[in-house]
């Protein structure tokens, strides 16, 4: 496949279609009642990025509070209760309103059917229903913040969560609704991958992005119902005091943690697998070289999904579970490190002897490699029993999960956004400024979170409003880093939005990608392809063809 390089180039000299999915129908109803996966993807994008903004504002407030021991933001005193709400809402919004729904709902919704050569997902109306469930859940969550706010931490541990005042019940109900949005999305993608592949596309001809999203979808349908029932039990405990989690009435608080982490550990793989799926696209495209170890990456994705279900107890090494459970969970946790390592080595080897250019998506992909390395390696400290005792519940854990959730998943999400932006909008963004955002992102992210490893290893617990004087310099450094992150994100928003002012004349295939989405126009027509694409080559085949079309 020869990479197309010039702007305005169209495959095979086809005329650019006048009508595409964006302009074919107009008006509020045509969007609100759409069943087009591309339009639904755009609506999810706007929704989840708004949630990201909200969660990000809470994060900035948290870091501003921690800037000095006086805990004053622009002269206003932040009390301990307010601070507790800041970090709870930051976590809850980011986890449930942003990270879990974002890549599946937005990028995957848009790209997956195109990559499979399909006209839509298996159940387009269910897709729209998923989106509206997200909206309902978001409205409920925001209402709970306005009515009374929650201060339990995003993990809702009992018995504090069953006895504290605040709108815990409404917030958990919101998460319950959001869970169904996630389940239906996963269900839709599984059916789509099984049934709607183009002729000639076997399982091992699919792009690795699809393998990653399929693995994610498996977790979504298997784990989320357990969260659903856990939240129902939590609500019933709060309202009826049924006696399952509250020790004063015969319940077991540690049981809540088992139920909660049984979902929430696989959930973090719902977060990282889509990020890895994006990287599996970016690296071969910008290295102009076939992916190394396709099958290994495919198998690693599925095995990550499955193994993720048997390690939940590593969140509870000092929580009071049995000693045997602790030992078993630690051993299994080391197992889950291996597939991630395999993927990283395969990506690096793909770059070896490649023909590499550093457009914005590739810069984000390279950031991912380094940030994910740090995130994954610090997981080892936490999986190792003797060091975990010291590090758990400290800032070390906070730093670790931000490196994997934000430094990896969000980095990949932003890279994917730049990558598929021309396909989704028909516009090329300003490349130079895009590259600048990537560099600032990398600097800002490390500045914010690298010091937090030190805070943790030196003994600062998490969710802490006060801290020992010796920790202040590191907190200042971290807070300034958060401003740099803010700058980078603001710039990315500006770069992408500015591109919308240009006419929609992006090439079909600006990056020279080999997957099917690049075989149709940018933006695509409503029915995706003018003719049903038939797969004619291996995935990621960059060998020059003997005959040019």
């Amino acid at each position, binding site marked *: 496949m020869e990479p197309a390089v010039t702007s305005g180039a169209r495959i095979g000299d086809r005329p650019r279609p006048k009508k595409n999915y964006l302009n074919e129908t107009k008006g509020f109803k045509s969007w609100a009642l759409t069943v087009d996966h591309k339009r639904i993807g755009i609506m999810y994008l706007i929704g989840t990025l708004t949630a990201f903004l909200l969660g990000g504002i809470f994060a900035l407030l948290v870091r501003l509070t921690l800037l000095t021991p006086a805990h004053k933001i622009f002269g206003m005193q932040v009390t*301990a209760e307010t601070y*507790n709400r800041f970090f709870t809402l930051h976590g809850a919004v980011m986890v449930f309103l942003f990270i879990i729904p974002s890549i599946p709902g937005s990028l995957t919704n848009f790209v997956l059917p195109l990559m499979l050569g399909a006209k839509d997902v298996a159940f387009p109306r269910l897709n729209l229903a998923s989106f509206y469930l997200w909206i309902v859940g978001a409205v409920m969550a925001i209402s709970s913040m306005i009515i009374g706010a929650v*201060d*339990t931490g995003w993990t809702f*541990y009992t018995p*504090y969560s069953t*006895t504290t005042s605040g709108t815990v019940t409404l917030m958990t109900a919101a998460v319950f609704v959001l869970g169904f949005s996630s389940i239906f999305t996963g269900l839709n993608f599984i059916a789509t991958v099984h049934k709607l592949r183009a002729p000639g596309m076997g399982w091992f001809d699919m792009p690795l992005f699809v393998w990653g999203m399929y693995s994610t979808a498996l977790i979504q349908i298997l784990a989320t119902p357990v969260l659903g029932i856990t939240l129902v039990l939590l609500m019933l405990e709060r309202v009826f005091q049924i006696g399952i989690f509250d*020790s*004063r009435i015969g319940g*077991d*608080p540690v049981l809540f943690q088992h139920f909660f982490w049984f979902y929430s550990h696989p959930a973090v793989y719902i977060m990282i697998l889509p990020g890895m799926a994006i990287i599996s696209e970016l690296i071969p495209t910008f*290295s102009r*070289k*076939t992916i*190394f170890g*396709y099958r290994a990456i495919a198998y690693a994705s599925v095995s990550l999904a499955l193994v993720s279900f048997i390690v939940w107890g590593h969140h509870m090494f000092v929580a*009071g579970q049995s000693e045997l459970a602790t*030992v078993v969970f*630690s051993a299994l946790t*080391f197992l889950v*490190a*291996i597939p991630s*390592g395999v993927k990283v*080595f*395969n990506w*690096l*080897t793909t*770059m070896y*002897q*490649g*023909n*590499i250019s550093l457009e914005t998506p*590739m810069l984000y992909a*390279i950031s991912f*490699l*380094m940030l994910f*390395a*740090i995130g994954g*390696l610090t997981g*080892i*400290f936490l*999986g*190792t029993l*003797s*060091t*975990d*005792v*010291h590090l*758990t*519940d*400290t800032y070390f854990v906070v730093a670790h999960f931000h490196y994997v959730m934000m430094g990896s998943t969000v980095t990949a999400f932003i890279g994917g956004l730049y990558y598929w932006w021309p396909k989704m909008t028909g516009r090329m963004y300003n490349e130079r400024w895009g590259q600048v955002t990537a560099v600032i992102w990398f600097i800002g992210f490390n500045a914010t979170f690298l010091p937090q490893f030190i805070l943790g*290893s*030196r*003994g600062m*617990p*998490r*969710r*802490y*409003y006060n801290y020992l004087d010796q920790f202040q310099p590191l907190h200042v450094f971290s807070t300034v880093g958060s401003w740099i992150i803010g700058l980078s994100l603001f710039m990315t928003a500006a770069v992408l939005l500015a591109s919308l002012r240009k006419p929609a004349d992006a090439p079909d295939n600006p990056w020279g990608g080999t997957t099917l989405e690049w075989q149709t126009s940018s933006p695509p027509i409503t029915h995706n392809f003018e003719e049903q694409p038939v797969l004619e080559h291996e995935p990621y085949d*960059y060998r020059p063809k003997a005959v040019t079309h």
Partner: protein
Amino acid sequence: MDWLRVWMMPPQGSEFAKEIDFVYMALFWLSVVLFFMIAVPSVYFPWRYRFKRGRVTPHQTHNTTLEVLWTVGPLVLCVGIFFWGLNGWMKYAVAPGEAMEISVTAKQWLWQFEYPDGSRTINDIHVPVNKPVKFTMTSEDVLHDFYVPDMRVKHDIIPGRYTQIWFTPTVLGKHNFTCAEYCGKDHSGMKGFLTVDNDADFAKWMETGGTEWEDYFNGKDPTKTPADWGKITYERVGCNSCHTTDGTKSKGPSWKGVYGSMVELNNGTSVLADEAYIRESMLSPQAKIVKGFDPIMPTFQGLLKPNQQNGLVAYIESLK
């Protein structure tokens, strides 16, 4: 390279801390090496193999030997690290039989400790050096966690159950401890100091609550009065979680202007808040309840040493 460990870790309060630090630093250097093995190619390859128009890349789809090596290699490494971690953890998990047992009751937002002889203290605990000590812990309300960074130990504290940690402190002096499981509003205020004493000082502490208070009562330092000791006690022992000193009503009456005033009780009578009243309030708080407040104050009988009671009386008197 010791400065790196000193910068990253808290002071080492025990031999166990030294062992954990060794594991930590080994993992640290391993991570540094592995990180560079990933970061260097990430940055080098884009430069070495930078884009050249027309260049054709080799079609490398897989290499079985290499892939097996980098699957099995890390697996072996992980197994090794797992066992190393398990080894240290097993030492942490089982307290030796001769350890002195201190029982801990955590509640929002303070720590209550009780020694084998029945004497009790709040937030401020002393232990003898070089002797193993075991903390048997429960909570009165929500989850808490007892974390002593210098000893590298922590464990959750669960209502309705008993959990345990132990260590053998080897370094004299003050070591901080904190609550490490989010427990509500003043979670980050729920801390205290663990002081490791030699045998003589420890014995003194068990008898009179230590020597720190003495300077406040011997008149040698004009900046250290009994009222100052009372203020320290007010904060340390947790009076401040229910009583303010500026007049604002909290769970309990404010101490401002109380001493020598007439106090109205919930049974309609009024009493003079003299020294006897103040002392009775500390030791038998249920005897007289101030009007407009609930009878929720626990007794501090056995929890306040005579010097602490004297200091508090002096402090309250000073708050006119």
